């Protein structure tokens, strides 16, 4: 165990992640000091969310080799339950005392936590039941089943009608009016980014990570070698789902709204998968790099191409899969084979 913890501050891959954390912290501090623009700080925050989501999915997809198209479900569940709870709480508090209604960050954060915990529990429950059943399938069959899961939950949530918004979508615009909301949210995102980095890194380099690698490479051989493959897969799926759900909760908080068709959309799953593919499967470093590069591509094409940008992003993903199936990490291994042993 101590061996594993030590890797967190000695291994190069972990140090790269800590370098990123440092950059994000510095950006936050400079923003607070008025030396960095809102725009730059927003980009930093977007990067954390993207890398965070890539790492969340990586635990099951990249480490264990199970490509899940169903992660939008967990992202959406976290978002939906957080939006619902925060919105209801805000409305109730307002109705009770409209004159003296004063929404502080701390009070709202308490509700957010409630929603985030609820979303995480719901995601864990879903991953531990339906996920466990679906994890009996392999390869394409697993992937297809997770697409089914995504649609099933999307349409189930759509049945819910929020009386005020007239659909399942939930506006939590009151949050944006909170004094210092942006900066405090930046801190929240940074804290959660650090949590994700630590969890995802330890899941990779611990004994658990060895087991997942074995499962990815040859599940039958892993089982015969003593790896409790069923349990490991389910644990990986639950961990991955919970992290994804928490990022969903953060997204709703940041954006002050929950949109059912956006957050539960298969497109969200595809983003997470694309980041892992671009970065390269099997490592912690892959999704970390993939999350950054994917977001950079997204930014670069955003203004110029507006809605057609996903065509370009899609083509780039296809190019990666066909020309560089091992992703950016594979490129590193190709150019500098000696670096292989530093890539966790």
């Amino acid at each position, binding site marked *: 165990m101590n*061996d*594993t913890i030590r890797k967190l501050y000695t291994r190069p891959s972990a140090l790269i992640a800590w370098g990123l954390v440092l950059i994000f912290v510095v950006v936050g501090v400079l923003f607070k000091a008025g030396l960095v623009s809102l725009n730059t700080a927003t980009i930093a925050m977007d990067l954390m969310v993207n890398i965070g989501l890539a790492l969340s999915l990586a635990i099951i997809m990249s480490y264990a080799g199970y490509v899940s198209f169903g992660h939008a479900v967990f992202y959406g569940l976290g978002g939906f339950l957080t939006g619902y709870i925060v919105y209801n709480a805000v409305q109730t508090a307002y109705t009770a005392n409209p004159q003296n209604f004063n929404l502080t960050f701390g009070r709202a954060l308490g509700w957010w936590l409630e929603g985030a915990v609820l979303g995480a529990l719901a995601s864990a429950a879903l991953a531990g039941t339906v996920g466990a059943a679906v994890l009996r399938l392999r390869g394409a069959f697993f992937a297809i089943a997770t697409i089914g899961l995504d649609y099933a939950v999307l349409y189930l949530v759509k049945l819910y009608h929020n009386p005020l918004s007239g659909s399942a979508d939930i506006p939590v615009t009151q949050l944006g009016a909170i004094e210092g909301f942006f900066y405090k949210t930046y801190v929240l995102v940074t804290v959660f980014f650090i949590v994700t980095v630590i969890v995802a890194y330890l899941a990779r380099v611990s*004994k658990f990570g*060895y*087991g997942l*690698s*074995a499962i*990815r*490479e*040859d599940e*039958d*051989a*892993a*089982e*015969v*070698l*003593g*790896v*409790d*493959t*069923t349990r490991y897969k389910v644990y990986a799926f639950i961990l991955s789902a919970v992290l994804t759900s928490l990022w969903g909760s953060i997204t709703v908080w940041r954006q002050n709204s929950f949109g059912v068709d956006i957050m539960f959309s298969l497109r969200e799953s595809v983003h997470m998968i694309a980041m892992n593919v671009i970065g390269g499967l*099997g490592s912690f470093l892959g999704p970390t790099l993939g999350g950054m590069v994917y977001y950079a591509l997204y930014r670069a094409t955003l203004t110029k191409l507006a809605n057609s940008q996903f065509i370009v992003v899609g083509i780039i993903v296809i190019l990666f899969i066909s020309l560089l199936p091992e992703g950016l990490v594979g490129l590193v291994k190709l150019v500098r084979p000696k670096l*292989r*042993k530093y890539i966790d």
Partner: protein
Amino acid sequence: MAAQLKGARVALEVDNVTKRFGGLTALDHVSFKVYEGEILGLIGPNGAGKTTMFNVITGVYKPEEGRVIYYGEDITGLKPHVIARKGIARTHQVVKPFNELTVLENAMIGALFGTRHGQITEEEARSIAMEILEFVGLAEKAEEPAKVLNIQEKKRLELARALAEEPRLLLLDEVLAGLNPTEVAHMLDLLRKIRREKGVTMIMIEHVMHAVMNLADRIVVLHFGRKLAEGTPEEVARNPEVIAAYLGDPELALKFVRRLGGV
């Protein structure tokens, strides 16, 4: 050897095992015992049910009938990883390396999840793995990804991974298949070294007749899922039924026996 074995403990007992695949009976009421410290050869024509027997012993398949008893404990129907942790390791006829992982990592996984599962640190697993890689002659490939190994190295890796589990019973499924004569000789040396230095009980499935006849203390012959014969290599090689069903040429069979004299 057979005389020594009289007093030895029974490591594994296969008791009346039947395994069917749909209409096909791959194993038909097969029974045999493996004594601690011995090497049991398991031979028979293609499709006789040899690999299926390994799959039943390791829990990959559950038999329709019969039991598998390991050191007095009924392990029938337990999950493969549970059986592995009790000390039964195997190699695969068709090698199953963890391709993207290094040779060392492959062996480490054996050590981490094998019989010492849960009582061993990563560093200990690493040194056990390294020791085993030295033992099988793969140490200089330790940092290479397993996918770059050639077939005989992959066979050694299978063996290394299984040995890293520190098993009491090792099941070898055609570790000599696909090797050229020099490689076969090297592998045989290695198997002898395993028996000499590790004292592991072994069952070996093998088509390379002179090798089994040489190494095994006793041999069980399977034919269409049934146990056709059991005995010392000599007894088996002289058995007319075995000659007819599997060994073919009686002259050849005798040659194996003669070669035995020289070993």
